[in-house]
């Protein structure tokens, strides 16, 4: 891992915003991103040296418990930072650094390249406006005629499985169930034909059958449009079922990353293993879920060593004083001082 305290000086606009998306440039790259609140507001950074990649057509999972920084990481990709936050590192979408992009660059990014779907569909729509207006807004801003925009909106509603798309355009959000409204929100996110979709717990508020349908829709759309997706969830079973690769976050740091199947079969970080053990399983003979003892690290605490040490069954003295770096291994990477010892085997 690179030094996280490196200077904040940035090359201004060194990459033209219009640069073509060539296949060598990752769709999304976070490189050593650190995000701090103003002095006194927090004892540790919200994001601490986070690096991750999403390629075109890939689904990448970001998992971790509440408060670990998943949503902040997502919002950073859109250039939405907490007030007065300071950042170091780079967030590049198709090569363009988001953190140094000006207002015009950010507008282009949000309008044409990246869309986000949030957990609660009701919070992302204006309850007073018809679904049709909500869906066509972005298209109209992009210069499309009203007629064409409505036709496109209807097409998208059909794609996300809304049966009477014409009728749906005239209806208000409260006339939809949670699952149906989340489809509308996904349709809206797709109006710009984004290269990257940020899905921040898009199915957490839905029941399991509806969740399956919504995920099915996301996957189908992704296959046809080649969209890359960063999928945030705390449900490891869900992440394993849909993601190509998973990043595990703890207290603002990536503590493990690995192809989904491998992470599931053989986690190397004790936190990942603990998270797996706390997931209730349906398989016959499955052990009851085991809680992780203790509580997560708050922003007011800045542990000197490994942030998970206080809750870790394998922690030794060294873990409380030395901060483990994320070290690459055969299939991924883990940030644990004892990973070499095969403590989880």
């Amino acid at each position: 891992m690179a030094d996280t305290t490196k200077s904040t000086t940035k090359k201004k606009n060194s990459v033209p915003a219009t640069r073509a998306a060539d296949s060598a440039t990752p769709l999304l790259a976070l490189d050593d991103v650190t995000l701090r609140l103003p002095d006194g507001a927090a004892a540790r950074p919200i994001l601490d040296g986070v690096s991750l990649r999403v390629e075109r057509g890939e689904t990448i999972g970001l998992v971790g418990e509440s408060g670990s920084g998943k949503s902040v990481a997502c919002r950073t990709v859109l250039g939405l930072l907490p007030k007065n936050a300071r950042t170091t590192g780079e967030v590049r979408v198709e090569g363009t650094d988001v953190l140094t992009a000006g207002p015009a660059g950010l507008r282009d990014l949000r309008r044409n390249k990246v869309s986000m779907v949030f957990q609660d569909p009701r919070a992302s729509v204006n309850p007073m406006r018809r679904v049709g207006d909500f869906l066509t807004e972005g298209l109209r801003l992009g210069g499309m005629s009203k007629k064409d925009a409505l036709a496109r909106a209807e097409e998208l509603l059909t794609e996300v499985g809304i049966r009477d798309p014409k009728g749906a355009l005239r209806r208000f959000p409260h006339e939809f169930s949670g699952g149906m409204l989340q489809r509308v929100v996904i349709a809206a996110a797709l109006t710009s034909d984004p290269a990257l979709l940020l899905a921040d717990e898009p199915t957490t508020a839905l029941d399991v059958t509806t969740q399956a349908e919504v995920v099915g829709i996301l996957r189908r759309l992704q296959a046809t449009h080649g969209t890359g997706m960063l999928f945030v969830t705390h449900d490891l079973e869900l992440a394993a079922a849909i993601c190509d690769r998973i990043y595990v976050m703890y207290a603002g740091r990536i503590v493990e990353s690995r192809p989904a199947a491998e992470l599931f079969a053989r986690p190397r970080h004790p936190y990942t293993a603990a998270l797996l053990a706390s997931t209730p399983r349906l398989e016959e003979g499955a052990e009851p879920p085991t809680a992780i003892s203790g509580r997560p690290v708050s922003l007011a605490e800045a542990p000197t060593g490994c942030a998970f040490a206080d809750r870790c069954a394998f922690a030794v003295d060294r873990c409380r004083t030395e901060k483990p770096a994320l070290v690459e291994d055969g299939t991924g990477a883990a940030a644990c001082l004892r990973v070499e010892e095969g403590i989880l085997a």
Partner: protein
Amino acid sequence: MSKPKTPQGGPEAAAGLLEVRGLCRTFGDHKAVDDVSFTLPPGGSVGIVGESGSGKTTTARMIVGLERPDGGSITVGGRERASRPRNRAERLARAREVQMVFQDPYLSLDPRIAVRDCLDEVLRLHAPELGKPGREARVAELLDQVGLGAREAGALPKRLSGGQRQRVAIARALAANPRVMILDEAVAALDVSIQAQILELLATIRREEGIGYLFVSHDLAVVKHITDDVVVLRNGKIVESGRTADVLSAPQHAYTRLLIDSVPGPGWDPERIAESRRALA
């Protein structure tokens, strides 16, 4: 604990602690709950599962007394509670017997009242015999039981995490010394590690107190680990019920199969789930 209740014995043991028979509720021309019957044995745990809109919450609300049934009967310890209470004492006794914990306790906790006072309030209502020192001791005991410390005791709900708020809601329910606790999606909003803590807490409380649980959820993986029996609701009707282990390992109804297949895990296939859902519609 002050008064551990024995799960077995008592005149109603054979009859079941909570008996629901032919429960119905219609909204407009929509039958939200349609002829629902089940039994919760003393100290038992029954799950109510079904997709969104299947009538789980409406059933729960009728049992607590937040919603009046159109028909059917609900008894706890043999006493009917579907009818209007005759007087204040009866209303209080009913309120005390059955306590409910909701998905988001933030909405059900008064934002201006600190945790300690919130518990004290319940004790004043349901355990006036305790007196002030007795209440103080009981509040401390309840906080300890749900794993909350002194800092949390003095805090307002907004200063607590989701998991801590859910502990407060459970402590508040326990303060009434109920015989039945209804948990409506009580762990659905919590992330898995906190969810596991609350599930462990609930298991311990059931073991120690012998309180019966009615556990409402759409997540069968959770239901598997916290209930003995399960009732599967679809469009307000029971399509299947039985021992949780049996229903999950050998579901008899296609809808139960669908709910099981929907839980993410090895072999999870969203396209197939969507297909079977359409086939059932």
